[in-house]
């Protein structure tokens, strides 16, 4: 209160104010992101294995060169990309269909939209537990339903073999990621004015034509955002792998996230772990940029 009555006083410059106001947040972010990032780069350039203390040594790019010549990098990379593409496609297709449904007006739409938040709210680890139970080879509900419907004749261990393990991993992962993508696409759909559709109907455009020539082009910016976000998330998948498959069976779901984890926290090779983690970071960033440029250019051409 005193400051109010002190009369006119010198105001700080806006830059100074900005520094003061944002200092706590920036310090927190810097100390747990920038500093560790620097240390991670440092570690990746060293031989640094906790099982062999006292033999840390600067080795330049050797860790990276080793990885690039190692099938333990290319195998998981291929698995990661398979998983990421599969997840993005499933998430995109399902959430687009759901968003189109929720964009229609009908009684009960609000309830349905609220229910979407249930999968979204479930932590990834609990989601993995849920699907582990659903897919249980002896007692799983998925087996029971499939048997009832006559799709299978006996219970299957879908997490025990390829390619079913990858398919179900993608479904389980997509299940909690679809809601957010749906809400984003729905908000994109709602920005499209109704009169465009009305005049298209007058001109005799059918459902499919309206989708292809109005909805899809106008939704494209939002689709790009969803693709980029989901791609980045899927490339660093870890939680669900930890609980559901642990990289198995026989490395079938050994994604880069899991490879980094085992290399670092099971083999305790922090140098090798850091360098492969850097490679994953670079791939993520690179793909994000490529997608951004590619999708953005596509938008400008139109």
């Amino acid at each position, binding site marked *: 209160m005193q400051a109010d009555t002190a009369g006119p006083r010198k105001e700080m410059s806006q830059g100074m104010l900005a520094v003061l106001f944002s200092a706590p947040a920036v310090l927190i*972010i810097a100390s747990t*992101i920038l500093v560790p990032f620097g240390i991670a780069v440092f570690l990746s350039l060293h031989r640094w294995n906790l099982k062999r203390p006292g033999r840390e040594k600067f080795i330049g790019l050797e860790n990276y060169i080793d990885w690039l010549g190692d099938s333990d990098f290319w195998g998981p990379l291929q698995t990661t990309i398979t998983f990421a593409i599969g997840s993005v496609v499933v998430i995109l297709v399902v959430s687009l269909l759901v968003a189109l449904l929720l964009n229609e007006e009908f009684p009960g739409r609000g309830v349905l*939209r609220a229910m979407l*938040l249930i999968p979204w709210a479930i932590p990834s680890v609990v989601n993995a*537990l849920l699907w582990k139970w659903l897919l249980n080879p002896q007692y799983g*509900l998925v087996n029971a339903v499939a048997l009832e419907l006559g799709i299978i004749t006996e219970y299957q261990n879908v997490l025990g073999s390829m390619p079913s393990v990858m398919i179900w991993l993608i479904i389980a992962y997509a299940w909690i990621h679809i809601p957010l993508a749906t809400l984003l696409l729905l908000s994109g759909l709602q920005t499209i004015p109704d009169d465009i559709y009305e005049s298209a109907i007058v001109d005799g455009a059918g459902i499919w034509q309206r989708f292809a020539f109005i909805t899809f082009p106008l939704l494209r910016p939002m689709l790009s955002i969803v693709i980029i976000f989901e791609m980045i998330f899927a490339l*660093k998948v870890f939680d669900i792998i930890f609980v559901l498959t642990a990289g198995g069976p026989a490395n079938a779901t050994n994604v880069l996230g899991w490879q980094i984890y085992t290399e670092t926290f099971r083999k305790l090779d922090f140098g090798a772990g850091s360098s492969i*983690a850097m490679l994953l970071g670079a791939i993520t960033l690179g793909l*994000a940029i490529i997608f951004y440029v590619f999708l953005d250019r596509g938008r400008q051409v139109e």
Partner: protein
Amino acid sequence: MKQHARIRLVVIYVSAAVLMIGTVGPFLWLVSSSFQYERQLLSRPPQWLPNPVVLDSYREIFEGALLGEESGVPYQSRIFLRSFGNSFLVAGSVAAIAVMAGAYAAYPLARLDFRGRSTLLFGILASRLIPGLSLAIPIVLVARQIGMSDRIITLVFINLSFILPYVIWLLQSYFKSIPMELEDAGRIDGCSRLQVVNRIILPLALPGLTSAAILAFMLSWGEFLFALLLAETPASYTSTVIVSLFATDVDVNYVSIITAGVISVIPPICFALIFQRFIISGLLSGSLKG
């Protein structure tokens, strides 16, 4: 035309039913399983609804927490409630601090004119592109070195750094929607910038702050990687860590595992349903306005 409208409704409600089963079904099955006897769970065909409703697994968790080893329940069940409390402590602290620190950081980004503003905003957002796994290695190493691993406060700090960029982004876009005139009026009355923020912006931004706090709580509640890597004893286990310990342990019976899963999603699901308006507006403004 009437025929057409009827077909439309049929298509809509059939898809809505499929969607409903797909969204809520798996979760309801988890809940239903948690109220059954182990032997009922292992029956074929499965028993859809619990009959009778069995509360044993829930009681086990409370007894285990109270009596410790004497209760004879599995280790994970005994420490579950404590980890549940830890999750609350971590997520609650993260939400409170993230909104406070985030609001002050978001204000200059939304309203002040200074050199490096867009760089600051870009830097804050770009920090989220680095995969947590590549930061996890040095963070765990340093935390162990300085004796900070296995502590709740470390987890709060780390979760904050991942959640803050998101909160800042959300709040700065919310602040921009507050009419400038209100702020100008305060300035004419002689308020300093700090007073403008505290007395005008923050009260008006209450819905935005609520969205941010809820989202921060939920993101922090579900965090797993760092909780797993930094925890060494039950003192700092969060509920996601216990669930993962349960889920990867073959000796524990299914009902206990499932019950732990159900209890640990109660807070986020209640939040999601109670605050759905705030959450949906937060999710959309957080990622929409670019």
